[in-house]
């Protein structure tokens, strides 16, 4: 009898999974993972022989397994039950390695830049979890800073006498871990950013973001559960920028203060650590008292702009960081009520979103250009619009890779043709659009 029960239960389980697989409606997106789910790969002689079809079917079944989200949620319980969890335990989380990390070779010639566009949509390094907050380990490399500065110097040379070039690179949150034993990361961040300053030439201006943030190290300037800084961290970066650019920063107490609760960001989704889950972020942000209109352009030209928002007050939950500019876009133009004739272009990755919104107090027009997605020609944009300031505001990880530096350099010669063909292939030949940020540190 036991044999019959054993066999029947096993077969029932397998058959039930098959039935549910065919009966349940297929999902297109995963809100938890913030991505599109795999599509079915068509069968052809070529896709069969090169194995893409079989892998595609594997990926499709992986992504559409019945009750997938429930299984994933339950596995969290399993992982939390493997042992004893202490709230104040220091932990190291190692992300899945998706593809070999390209070595950041020091290349001072720049004569022939062949580095690949290099930013991964998923994190692959190690993270430190401390009291429910997640931090990257490390603090960049002064070696790479020189390459970033060299690219800035090239823009400063080309734009001499017409447009100022300003560097406002943000340190990693590791610089401000509230524990003495991690002080070394503070020093590493500082040295990396100082190396940018020491290598700048041709009148390029260094905004000492690190120093300004370091003065306020006892305040919460980065999210615990997300890889971005919060509005307070970005505000201090803005103060540093103003000091470098010769502006008087607007007191944030004179801005409209808004609050959003229960933000579990990217680093929670990545680590799925219980202590992080128990420590959701609160976003306090400040809206400058300036009237704005904003439009967003497609990656390749200025045709058919669509309406954009400087602040997206409705973005909540896992998308709370989209509050700033509504998230990443190739190019956003903000026109403000500040009629002083000054115009700026901000070259940024997602860290720059929370920073750029403060600039509306100082410029009549602010162009926010994401170097990862835009194919617009930066030099044309600057010349045609009479741009006064070219501001590089990005997270340090964006400035610390040959690939990203190359992408920023190439903005000068873009011709409106898509950079990507049309997507890149990463792990298990899963095709993804390369639109996401990276935390990669050197």
């Amino acid at each position, binding site marked *: 009898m*036991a*044999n*019959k*029960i*054993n*066999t029947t*239960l*096993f077969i029932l*389980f397998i058959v039930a*999974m098959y039935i549910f697989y065919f009966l349940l409606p297929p999902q297109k*997106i995963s809100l*938890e*993972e*913030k*991505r*599109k789910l795999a599509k079915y790969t068509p069968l052809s002689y070529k896709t*069969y*022989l090169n*194995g893409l079809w*079989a892998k595609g079917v594997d990926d499709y079944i*992986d*992504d559409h*397994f019945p009750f*997938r989200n429930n*299984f*994933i949620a*339950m*596995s969290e319980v*399993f992982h939390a039950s*493997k*042992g*004893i969890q*202490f709230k104040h*335990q*220091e*932990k*190291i989380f*190692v992300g899945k390695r998706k593809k070999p990390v390209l070595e950041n070779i020091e290349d001072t010639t720049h004569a022939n830049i062949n580095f690949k566009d290099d930013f991964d*949509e*998923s*994190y692959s390094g*190690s993270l*430190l979890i401390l009291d429910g907050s997640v931090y990257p380990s490390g603090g960049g490399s002064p070696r790479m800073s020189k390459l970033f500065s060299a690219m800035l110097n090239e823009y400063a040379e080309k734009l001499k006498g017409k447009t100022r070039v300003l560097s406002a690179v943000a340190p990693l949150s590791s610089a401000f871990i509230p524990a003495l*034993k991690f002080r070394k990361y503070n020093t590493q961040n500082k040295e990396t950013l100082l190396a940018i300053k020491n290598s700048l030439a041709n009148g390029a201006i260094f905004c000492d973001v690190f120093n300004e943030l370091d003065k306020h190290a006892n305040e919460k300037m980065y999210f615990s559960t997300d890889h971005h800084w919060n509005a307070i961290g970005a505000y201090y970066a803005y103060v540093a920028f103003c000091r470098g650019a010769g502006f008087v920063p607007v007191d944030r107490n004179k801005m409209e203060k808004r609050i959003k609760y229960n933000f579990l960001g*990217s680093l929670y*989704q*990545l680590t*799925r650590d219980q202590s992080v889950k128990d420590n959701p972020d609160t976003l306090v942000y400040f809206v400058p008292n300036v009237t704005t209109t904003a439009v967003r352009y497609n990656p390749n030209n200025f045709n058919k702009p669509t309406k954009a928002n400087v602040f997206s007050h409705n973005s909540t939950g896992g*998308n709370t*960081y*989209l509050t700033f500019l509504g*998230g*990443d876009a190739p190019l956003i133009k903000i026109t403000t009520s500040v009629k002083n004739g000054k115009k700026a272009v901000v070259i940024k990755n*997602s860290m720059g979103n929370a920073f750029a919104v403060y600039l509306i107090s100082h410029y009549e027009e602010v162009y926010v250009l994401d170097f990862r997605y835009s194919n617009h020609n930066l030099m044309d944009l600057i010349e045609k619009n009479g741009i006064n300031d070219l501001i590089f505001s990005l997270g340090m990880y964006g400035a610390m890779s040959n690939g990203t530096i190359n992408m920023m350099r190439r903005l000068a010669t873009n011709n409106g043709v898509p950079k990507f063909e049309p997507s890149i292939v990463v792990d298990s030949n*899963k095709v993804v*659009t390369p*639109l*996401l*940020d990276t*935390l990669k540190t050197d």
Partner: protein
Amino acid sequence: MFSLAFYAWEEPMWIYLMIFTAFFDYFMAILIERWRGDKKAKIVMLVTILVNLSLLIFYKYGGFLYDNLSAIGKLPFDRPKNSLPVGISFYTFMVISYIVDVYRGQLKAQRNPLNFLMFISLFQHLVAGPIVRYSQIGNQVDSRTIDWSKFSTGVSRFCLGLFKKIVIANVAGALVTKYLDAGFNDLSSVEAWFGITMFSIQLYFDFSGYSDMAIGLAKMFGFDFDENFRHPYAAQSVGDFYRRWHISLGKFFRDYVYIPMGGNRKSQLRNILVVWLLTGIWHGASWNFALWGLYFGCFMILEKLLEKFLAKIPRFLRHTYTLILIVFSRAIFYFVDFAQLKAFVGTLFYSKKSIGVGFSSDVYEHLFWFVLVLLFCIPWDEIYTSDSRVNNKVSYYYLRFKPAINIAMLFLATMLLVNSTYNPFLYTRF
């Protein structure tokens, strides 16, 4: 057909190679049988083995040989770029054992080519063994019976194997990646030993889990495969370990290499070294595997020489000595690069680094899982399903709850498998 479809799914290109191997060996075996007793049979046997080994060497060791030969002098051809056909190491040894057994007259050659193709391509063992001999399942290839008892035993074995692979080996694998892949120059000695111990756990539960699944699936389809692992970490000596670990490979080398070379009657020490060198190389096309084999070969010889002395040592100490040697050997197995291996071995015995942040949390957060690992090292099935225990109360309840245990293991493994497909992006991209 199902086995071929299964193979073609993973290996659409090299399925032709497997089919060629099957039909080539099928015809050669018939010829050998026809000419048995004649010199021609021996020639055909040697040619057949040579062809099979050549294919294995070309596909598995081509790049390795090229690298080593080109270090001596420039070669007139490019480095082979072919990928390794799945299962070639297993099915090549299966056909060699078949050919030799037919030559020796221990087997009748299979007359139905499709049956022989099925023997080679049986999906259950194709990916990770065991090396199934025709002598074991020849009768079942022709006809087999499936009943509730056999199917149920297969189900239990499959669920156990899947659980071992997913819930133990993969979890250990995550710790291995963490401690052995992320720059061990920053490791303390304690962390290095922890990492390599986790690799020992991963390797055993991964490989034996696959074997369990293969044996279980085979049972569901009416085949009886021999055991491939017999609690190797309970071994009292390196020699004992060898008899418990990857048994089908050990038996292959014993019957087709060690004994034909003279076994323990003639040049035993040489024979042991040759067998272990081959065992090492079989595991991978790299010198570290050869070193790993020689490492075991040397200890086998030492144990032979110190046999009487070792017999006097308490069991506990013998077990500890064996475990340390085995765990250490995993370092040789893991690091393909000798410079890395040297640095890691150095770290195992001396490191200036103190224990890193997060080590204690890794230990605490896996405490119950460590207990689970130990529990799964115990052969519950052998203990509680044996005939001598048939009236035992625990045995009674164990058998009663077996279906529930199996379905729980299957559910847990499915859950973690699905979880492994979780691939969060840092930012919303729909």
